[in-house]
């Protein structure tokens, strides 16, 4: 296993380098003048000097590798340029919005994983009876509804008609509270901050705003996890040791929960990386629909306003984040499943 982890760590710089080259190559597809925004540190720069001298200054007509070298050394220091959409440098804008997205993603993971696994186990236990068919049809339909359609319908019904779950991140009164001097923002995650400040009203308001986006994300991934859990559970339930347990007279409930489910979950871990990938992409749509001011919404509005600096900075950021998450997933997989270490 040590070898496996070392190998993964050795490849890591190669992948990181590759992703940065890929992002930079996409940046090079636009002209030097449009690329300027990814180099400057404030819009005042554009007003004081003329554009030609700025292009000259940042060497935007130099050969690819020279420009890449200059760009990556800036990126390593955290210089991604100026974002017109956010009215701030890209780094500032990302840091400011990161907690919101983290809060949404973490909160979504719980119902996604628990719901998906339980549905999958349920479906496998009821293999080929009506319940199995109902859950499977539900999952295929759930997988086929685009997030932006489902999200809009959720918004229309749960906010428009019922008025339960408003869009945005916090109500006006609640954001006034968290910005006030008595309220200490320890983590910038509103739920945790609210608990730490013993202000349950803020916690309640934060949760109220999170329910609809979390629900819209969940429906899609339930289908995905259900599918994998179900087929791996079906396979496990046919194993000899399950038959042994049953013939010893172990209760069916215990067989399913204690003996089968644990082993059936191993393949689910392998797709966790894939899921995070899709989840990050899905956040772009979900946050946009529910007006939730996180990284996803920032990315979408930057893209529609051709804010190259922000779009590419975020792409790189998402890429690095994903590589690290995948590394964690692979290592934990090697720890959970002893068989993989032998390879």
């Amino acid at each position, binding site marked *: 296993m040590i070898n496996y982890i070392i190998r993964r760590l050795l*490849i890591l710089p*190669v*992948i990181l380098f*590759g*992703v940065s080259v*890929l*992002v930079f190559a*996409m*940046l090079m*597809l*636009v002209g030097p003048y449009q690329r300027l925004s990814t180099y400057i540190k404030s819009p005042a720069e554009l007003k004081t000097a003329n554009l030609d001298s700025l292009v000259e200054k940042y060497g935007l007509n130099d050969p690819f590798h020279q420009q890449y070298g200059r760009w990556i050394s800036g990126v390593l220091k955290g210089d991604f340029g100026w974002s017109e959409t956010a009215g701030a440098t890209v780094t500032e804008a990302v840091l400011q919005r990161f907690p919101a997205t983290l809060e949404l993603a973490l909160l979504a993971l719980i119902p996604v994983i628990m719901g998906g696994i339980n549905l999958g186990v349920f479906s496998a236990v009821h293999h080929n009876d009506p319940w199995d068919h109902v859950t499977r049809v539900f999952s*295929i*339909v759930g*997988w*086929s*509804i*685009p*997030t*932006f*359609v489902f999200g*809009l*319908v959720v*918004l*229309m019904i749960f*906010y*428009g*008609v019922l008025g339960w779950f408003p869009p945005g991140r916090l109500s006006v009164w609640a954001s006034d509270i968290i910005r006030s001097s008595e309220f200490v923002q320890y983590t910038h995650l509103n739920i945790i901050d609210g608990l730490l400040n013993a202000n349950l009203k803020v916690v309640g308001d934060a949760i109220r705003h999170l329910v609809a986006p979390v629900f819209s994300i969940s429906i899609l991934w339930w289908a995905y996890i259900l599918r994998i859990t179900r*087929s791996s559970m*079906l*396979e496990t339930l046919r194993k000899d040791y399950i038959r042994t347990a049953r013939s010893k007279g172990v209760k069916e409930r215990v067989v399913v929960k204690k003996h089968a489910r644990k082993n059936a979950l191993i393949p689910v871990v392998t797709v966790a990386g894939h899921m995070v*990938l*899709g989840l*990050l*992409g*899905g956040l*772009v*749509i979900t946050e*946009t*629909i529910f007006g939730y001011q996180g990284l996803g919404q920032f*990315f*979408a509005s930057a*893209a*529609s306003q*051709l804010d*190259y600096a922000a*779009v*590419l900075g*975020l*792409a790189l950021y*998402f*890429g690095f984040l*994903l*590589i690290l998450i*995948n590394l964690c997933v692979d290592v934990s997989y090697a720890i959970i499943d002893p068989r993989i270490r032998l390879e």
Partner: protein
Amino acid sequence: MEWQEVLINLLRNKISLLGIFIILFFVIIAVFAPWIAPPASPRDPYMIPRAGWSPQPKPPNEEHIFGTSENQYDIFYGIIWGTRTAFRVGLIVVGISTFIGITIGTISAFYGGMVDEVMMRVTDIFLSMPFLVAAIVLTTILGKGLDNVMIALVTFGWMSTARLMRSQVLEIKTEEFVEAAEALGASDMRIIMRHVLLNTIFPVVINASMRMGSIVITASSLSFLGVGAPTGYADWGQMISFSRNWILGTQGNALQFWYTVVFPGVAITLFCLSWNLVGDAFRDILDPKLQN
């Protein structure tokens, strides 16, 4: 399993039969679009005709049976011609990216060693960005338009096929019949074409069928976010983006503009559902683990 056997199983399976019917339904709509919804100007049939200039959507009536959307775009027309857009984007993107994936996966597994290592690391690099994010970045840079959307989707859409193909070929490479062909002096090209590809193609076909749905969803997501199809182009994602400003209705009548999201939403969901139904049934038929 042979082709004929798989086909018979697909037609016997109720789930896949339903999927096939829905696909056929959409094919008919796409083929007969000029008759179902005659274009106002035959030179540019993909531009949705407008029934006026007022921004507020109007409910279904005799002239516009699904109503009109924001800025008076006819919803029925947009859905009918949007079917063609969906097929075009889906088939072209899935076709080209599957071809690239098969080529890279096969070469990688067949030759192994350094070739494999380099190709798989390149695949990893392309896989390191969320698909939707990468597609949005490239489309933003190339500019609005369906062609650029397709280029972006192909650029970041071939990796899963490549990985799948690679594992398939690795498995089959050690089979005796491949070794036998090699011993008989068959060329690499002949072995790949005749012995390897024919025996590994089914999982790739399932993958392609499932991807038809997700590619069409991603393409319309781009249009929904305003970086995909040009304004007024018959595209389901764009039809739904027209409904965004009206989704909460008016005071006291939240569902007033339901038709702006429901009709295009049903169209895109049914389209994706049909491909997923076929792909799902296909997978069950071919999965030896699920056979009793």
